[in-house]
């Protein structure tokens, strides 16, 4: 499955809306096992993306991703800034040649892993990105699966990010970055549907 500018634009628009709507949910999740700002951070990013896209409509998918990356990098202010930022920057570079959605997401996932020096099972957004990327590759990503990936983070013990300071006690809570990533993939599914 390939992604075009229209789909990608819709994807980002939906994601931005979800971030704005769920600001307090994300903050609450981050209060339990972090510093309580993931919603505020992503909301700041969302507003910056909107503003940047309103200023200049991107000519192609690569440019769109670059605009998203820069807005996030500049405005988010938390760990999720360089993480989502690197994902979109790497996807932007790849999108110059590549249009396959699963490949692009996989490249974004690799970017997060590089930036965060992290991998699956560390109770981070990787635990949504990586299985979502794999499901996209095999053509069977669904909203239910995204929710499942997200819910899997609940029983994990964090070994990266702020939640890792809590060690065993990080169990029993959803990872906030996985929740925002779930919004990202839910938005993607909706955008690709039609």
């Amino acid at each position: 499955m390939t992604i075009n500018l229209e789909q990608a634009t819709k994807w980002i628009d939906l994601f931005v809306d979800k971030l704005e709507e769920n600001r307090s949910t994300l903050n609450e999740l981050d209060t339990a096992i972090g510093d309580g700002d993931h919603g505020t951070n992503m909301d700041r990013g969302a507003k910056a993306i909107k503003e940047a896209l309103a200023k200049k409509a991107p000519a192609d998918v690569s440019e769109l991703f670059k605009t998203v990356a820069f807005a996030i990098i500049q405005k988010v202010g938390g760990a999720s800034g360089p993480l989502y930022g690197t994902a979109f920057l790497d996807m932007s570079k790849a999108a110059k040649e590549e249009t396959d959605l699963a490949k692009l997401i996989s490249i974004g996932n690799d970017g997060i892993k590089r930036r965060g020096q992290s991998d699956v099972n560390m109770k981070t957004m990787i635990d949504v990105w990586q299985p979502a990327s794999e499901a996209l590759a095999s053509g069977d990503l669904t909203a239910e699966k995204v929710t499942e990936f997200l819910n899997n983070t609940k029983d994990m013990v964090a070994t990266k990010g702020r939640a890792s300071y809590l060690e065993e006690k990080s169990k029993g809570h959803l990872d906030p970055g996985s929740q925002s990533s779930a919004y990202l993939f839910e938005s993607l599914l909706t955008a690709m549907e039609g």
Partner: protein
Amino acid sequence: MKYGIVILSHSPKIAEGVKDLISQAAPSISITYAGGTDENEIGSSLEKIQTACEQNKGEEILAFYDLGSSKMNLEMYMEMTDLTVHKYDVALVEGAYTAATLAEIEAPLENIETSLKKLLIK
């Protein structure tokens, strides 16, 4: 509240900044600080340390410091006071953050100290 945190730094700004930083991860923990000399210059002040410990609301105090003379003033204070003060020879910012995060979820002292051991550098 079982544990309160006291930050000692030669710099008033560092002391206050550490409080700001760790408060985010530990909004319900009592965090007090002693930064700089009585004149708010770079240095340390026994009087400020005393005030920070006395004003802290924790039943026991977890204390973090930056350099040698803060440590010595803290030890001097510990010899003088009846309060229970635990002093940690760990990285100031990182140690205080770790302890605050764990104290916030009411982790037992044993767990807090196990985590702090990884930050021992003094």
